[in-house]
């Protein structure tokens, strides 16, 4: 249908030519410029999407009526095709637990948000991981509002506002089915994990979560849940077998906390075919680094949808530790012996590692003092005899020598570095007494770490003036919290004597400004964990770490080897931010004494 500009009846060749065009007809009244073309008779469009408008113009410039039929050239301007693709997302109730229904919570949150509006400059948004393939799922994560808005709108209350990097940690964990949060100790992995679990539960994306942690940390997790997710019911799996069996199947507790040790006993319960968890979180996940260990076998067999691992030290001794942890995330994804750079590339998507230096600009500094202390004359004499006779004995063993033989000698020498066994002389202790006198005089508190409980017991009598308290494996678990409380509150208690094993993880002692490593652990990762009991969020000021090493002894050799390895791994993992903490291999332990392994000679380190 066209609007004719020409008189009817004109036929044949003509000087007047008309072209006819058609295009979509707007459905609503347009501007004046389109209403003015009333000279053209326009068709009524059936719909604004399908309508066509025909248009005729005189293309010859002519207009005389009596000449001839004009030639008409017609062209349709096609309607612009328009396809819409739609995605519908679940509307999560804002409060699955609590006093209010979701609608009420929404309204309250809106009103509170209106009252509490602030100019938020930072936006932390979720990014879909690369292994989320479906566009609908990717858009679901991508279209979520910034996490900061949850705090701003008081949708979910936090005891205090998380740091920006903690929001990033939550945004990292939330969309992932497989993840390792490997932040340095003290950055709040616990809080980030709890907050993300909380969001998943509120969003109905998870209903049953299992958290597995070392037994001494169960009470710590319980406290942290009370602080960061007070509305979420949690259940600690404990008690006799019948009670535990009932607890494993309690649907009313969306979060269950179990300890690694207990998994052995409850193996049949936790691996029952009808028990499934939406998420299983492993705290201190380095516990499953041994791929052939029972713990690894059990946790990797738990039926689950999501798998998260929390650890400050995913690599303690070798890259195979990481392979063990990935067995939990996805068995076979990493293999022993893979090239470090290949591993770095493969794990990049699944590992988030931040250090304090990276994220906390206002974190108080951590100052290291390496004290190289000469052995006392008595210690030096005993040490020399022990080393000489020990090395001779090892050489005599020949091919039957094992790393265990070398290990025994190392331990014996390290003990002599602490105390002369016959006289009790200790130049380290003398230095420690002097240092602690300064600490106590300034009203500060210190933690002293040792590898051995026996050493701690020997230290205590000499440190009585400083009100020493002990925290180690011999102290019953129910008494430990009271000891920490007393250490915090008693102004006369200036020093806490801790073993690395009992005090290296999960404790918050940020009121301490001084840390002494009376002897050195094999693995700097463990030392870092110990140091970070004090140097963590909330630290009142700088933390001074004194690393005591006996000069010209096995301690110094170990220190040198570990330092070299730390530098090497920091280089390898710089791309992913994975930690560079690593222990000694068997060859390196042999190398401490310039010994040949049964497989052949090796170079002496240091």
């Amino acid at each position, binding site marked *: 249908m066209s609007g004719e500009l020409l008189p009817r009846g004109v036929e044949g060749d003509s000087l007047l030519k008309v072209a006819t065009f058609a*295009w979509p007809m707007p459905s609503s009244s347009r501007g004046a*410029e389109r209403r003015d073309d009333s000279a053209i008779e326009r068709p009524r469009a059936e719909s604004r999407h399908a309508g066509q408008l025909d248009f005729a113009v005189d293309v010859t410039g002519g207009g005389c009526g009596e000449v001839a039929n004009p030639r008409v050239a017609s062209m349709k301007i096609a309607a612009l095709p328009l396809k819409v693709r739609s995605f519908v997302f679940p509307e999560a109730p804002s409060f699955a637990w609590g006093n209010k229904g979701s609608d009420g919570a929404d309204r309250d*949150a*809106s009103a509170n*948000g209106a009252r509490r509006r602030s100019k938020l400059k930072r936006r932390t948004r979720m990014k879909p991981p690369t292994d989320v393939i479906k566009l*609908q799922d990717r858009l679901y994560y991508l*279209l979520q509002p910034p996490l900061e*808005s949850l705090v701003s709108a008081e949708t979910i209350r936090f005891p205090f506002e998380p740091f920006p990097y903690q929001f990033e940690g939550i945004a990292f964990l939330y969309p992932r*089915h497989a993840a390792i949060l490997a932040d340095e100790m003290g950055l709040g992995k616990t809080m980030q994990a709890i907050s993300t679990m909380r969001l998943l539960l509120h969003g109905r994306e998870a209903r049953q979560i299992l958290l597995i942690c070392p037994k001494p940390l169960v009470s710590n997790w319980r406290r942290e849940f009370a602080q960061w997710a007070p509305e979420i019911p949690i259940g600690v799996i404990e008690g006799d077998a019948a009670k535990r069996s009932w607890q494993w199947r309690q649907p009313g507790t969306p979060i269950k906390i179990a300890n690694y040790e207990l998994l052995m006993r409850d193996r049949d319960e936790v691996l029952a075919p009808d028990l499934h968890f939406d998420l299983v979180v492993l705290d201190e996940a380095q516990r499953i680094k041994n791929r052939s260990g029972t713990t690894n076998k059990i946790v990797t067999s738990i039926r689950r949808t999501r798998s998260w691992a929390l650890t400050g030290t995913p690599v303690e001794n070798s890259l195979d530790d990481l392979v063990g942890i990935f067995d939990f995330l*996805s068995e076979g994804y990493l293999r022993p012996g893979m090239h470090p750079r290949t591993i770095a590339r493969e794990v990049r998507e699944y590992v988030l590692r931040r250090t304090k230096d990276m994220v906390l600009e206002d974190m108080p500094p951590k100052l290291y003092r390496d004290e190289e202390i000469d052995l006392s004359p008595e210690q030096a004499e005993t040490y020399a005899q022990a080393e000489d006779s020990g090395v001779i004995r090892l050489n005599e063993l020949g091919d039957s020598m094992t790393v265990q033989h070398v290990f025994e000698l190392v331990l014996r020498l390290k003990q002599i570095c602490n105390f002369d066994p016959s006289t009790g002389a200790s130049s380290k202790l003398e230095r420690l007494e002097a240092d602690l006198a300064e600490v106590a005089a300034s009203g500060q508190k210190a933690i002293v770490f040792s590898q051995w409980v026996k050493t701690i017991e020997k230290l205590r009598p000499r440190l009585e003036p400083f009100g020493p308290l002990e925290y180690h494996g011999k102290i019953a678990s129910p008494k430990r919290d009271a000891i920490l409380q007393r250490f915090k509150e008693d102004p006369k208690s200036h020093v806490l004597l801790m073993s690395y094993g009992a005090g290296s993880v999960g404790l918050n002692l940020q009121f301490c400004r001084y840390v002494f490593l009376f002897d050195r652990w094999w693995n700097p990762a463990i030392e870092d964990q110990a140091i970070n009991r004090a140097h963590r969020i909330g630290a009142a000021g700088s933390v001074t770490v004194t690393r005591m090493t006996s000069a010209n002894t096995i301690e110094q050799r170990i220190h040198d080897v570990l330092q070299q390895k730390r530098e090497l791994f920091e280089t390898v993992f710089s791309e992913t931010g994975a930690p560079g903490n690593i222990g000694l291999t068997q060859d390196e332990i042999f190398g401490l004494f310039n010994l040949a392994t049964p497989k052949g000679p090796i170079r002496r380190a240091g």
Partner: protein
Amino acid sequence: MSSTKGSETGIGFVTVVKSEELGYVGGLLVVNPLGRPLEFHATAPVKPSRAHEILYGATLEPFLVGERIVGALTEAAKLPLRLVLTDRREVIDGAPAASWGPVLVRSHDDSDAAIDSTPWELRRAVGEFELAARDSLRETLAIDDLSEPFDRIREALDEARKSASRPATRRPGEAA
């Protein structure tokens, strides 16, 4: 994914992205009062021809953006839209007299965004209405920065564009 059952109405954020290569792509994000996504609708790219450009002239963008694209997007919405916000003036200029009365959101500086008008003509006609609408909207919607959801839409449109060409990768969590 479950349905959006539970919300009676939604608040829409709509924008249109123009590129030389693809033409115009529109996206509508429907959120709840907390800003969480309920629906997302996106058009396939629409590229007007040279003939369209010549014949429509200055009316092309208001027509294409405000009427065709935004009209199709809002028609696709499953939930009734209580309000639609946009950062494109063409939406206001080209919008039909729809029940969802578009509100223009414009950034005044890098750190804040504010509502300029509700709708554009009303802002020009009655200054007081603007103030009342702003207060009312802020009681309705717990979003601090009203320009923020448009960034989400733009990212989502970009994601949709890229998704077709993204190679599949292995998913560790699936093997558990």
